[in-house]
């Protein structure tokens, strides 16, 4: 009985860290970018105030929107919360490992994406439809690349369960320097940038109609709906960075539910995610956004790198 309680408690801790940590990471990225452009930039804690402000603001709904538009923020938010319990952040095995594995995660991401695209179409605004069609066409390359990158790591562990993958990496650190593992990391990193809508694939800070993808779909949202969507996309970034850091450098992740292990897990998780966030910020500052028709080239590189990773596993052996 106390075991169950412990697992529930650790799941709650994990959720809190993701919920509270995500805006912080977004703030850090913004700050690093501002410093690199010789600006002072908004305080690191600004995203919290933004969310707080949005939550208090009134919601304005387009008269042509339906229930899909109103339901989407909650669907996106809860699907991300479920993912937070399905991918290893603080502790392995993950809290909801009996629900599913990496394939569930990919489907939950697809669920959120599907409803966001529907909501974009729902308001009958031209920008929404434009964003939805771009998002779906890019997703058709992101998803296979992501699956291949993770499958390449899953092959050595012999399971698509993320917890099993991470624990097998913890027990045999030699496989961390396997070339296939490194290629899969680069592939998944490009996927992360595309999936979370960062430069060079999408620009999260612009509302210039020619370039926006994700922002175009959520253009009509306001008030607490916008807050939920923004928060969810910040958490998505946080979770992808956590997945990258734990699948490829599983240092310090807790393997048992004790207070000390959890604290070590949380500190190392935050450190790794902050490092990756700084890398993302540097990439954003030093690269221009790709033309939309060039985006498939970049994503195809991610796909091919993941494919190479998989082939190299079979050539070189685990």
């Amino acid at each position: 009985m106390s075991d169950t309680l412990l697992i529930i408690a650790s799941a709650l801790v994990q959720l809190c860290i993701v919920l509270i940590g995500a805006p912080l990471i977004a703030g850090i990225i913004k700050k690093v970018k501002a410093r690199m452009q010789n600006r002072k930039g908004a305080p690191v804690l600004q995203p919290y105030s933004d969310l707080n402000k949005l939550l208090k603001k009134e919601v304005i709904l387009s008269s042509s929107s339906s229930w899909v538009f109103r339901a989407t923020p909650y669907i996106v938010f809860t699907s991300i919360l479920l993912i937070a319990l399905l991918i290893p952040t603080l502790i392995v095995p993950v809290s909801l490992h009996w629900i599913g594995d990496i394939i569930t995660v990919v489907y939950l991401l697809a669920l959120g994406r599907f409803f966001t695209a529907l909501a974009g179409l729902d308001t009958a605004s031209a920008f929404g439809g434009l964003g939805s069609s771009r998002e779906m066409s890019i997703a058709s390359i992101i998803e296979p690349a992501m699956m291949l990158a993770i499958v390449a790591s899953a092959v050595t562990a012999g399971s698509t369960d993320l917890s099993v993958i991470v624990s097998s990496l913890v027990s045999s650190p030699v496989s961390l320097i396997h070339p296939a593992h490194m290629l899969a990391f680069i592939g998944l990193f490009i996927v992360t940038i595309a999936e979370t809508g960062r430069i060079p694939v999408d620009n999260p800070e612009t509302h210039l109609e020619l370039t926006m993808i994700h922002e175009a779909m959520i253009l009509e949202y306001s008030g607490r709906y916008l807050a939920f969507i923004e928060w969810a996309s910040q958490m998505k970034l946080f979770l992808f960075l956590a997945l990258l850091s734990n699948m490829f450098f599983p240092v310090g992740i807790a393997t048992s539910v004790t207070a000390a292990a959890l604290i070590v897990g949380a500190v190392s998780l935050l450190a790794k995610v902050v490092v990756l966030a700084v890398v993302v910020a540097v990439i954003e500052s030093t690269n221009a956004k790709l033309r939309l028709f060039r985006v498939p080239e970049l994503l195809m590189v991610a796909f091919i790198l993941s494919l190479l990773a998989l082939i190299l596993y079979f050539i070189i052996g685990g």
Partner: protein
Amino acid sequence: MVDANTASHLIDIFAATILVTAFLIVSSRSLLFYVRLFALQSLLLGMVALLVVVGYGESHILIAAVLTILIKAIAIPVALNRIIKKIEVQKEIALSINIPLSLLICGALMIVASSVAEPILAAQHQTTQTVSRVLPSSIAMMLIGLFIMMTRKKGVTQIIGLLTMENGLFLSGLAITYGMPLIVEVGIFFDIMVAAMILGVFVFRINQTFETINIDELRSLRH
């Protein structure tokens, strides 16, 4: 000194990186990137050869390794850069197959290469040797080099395709027999260097005559 185990790890990593540079060449659009990636590829190839020297004590390919770095990683890229600068061509490459499709085809070539290499490795009864694991990558590089020559239309890109094929040959030589005899290697090096120089001059002359290095224009010679 590096022991055989560390060396084999490093060879695996370097060989994978060499393969990635071949794919990056296919994915890039700028002539300058072609040359830079080729230089990187040759440098890594030289490192693999050096690792075979250090890790397995095969000292006879030391000269080949040094020559690889000097000629293919430094001399040829510098010469190609000079040609590109001199003829001031458009730095964008010309292709007959778009980049995403090219990458997919090269991925398929990689699969072909690994299935071709499998019986060779099985017949060799040397599965314990790390270096022979490089064979599929080297065959893939030869195929990708050929693919670059077939689908990229500018003179300089053709040279890079040829040189990528040659790098693949060198790698496969390392994989199967720890490198060919020195006299053969040296012969190949001079061959490659002369070929690169002549092709470079040739590209330069093509540019003077036709004011482009797009080889499609050569068809007009038939009339």
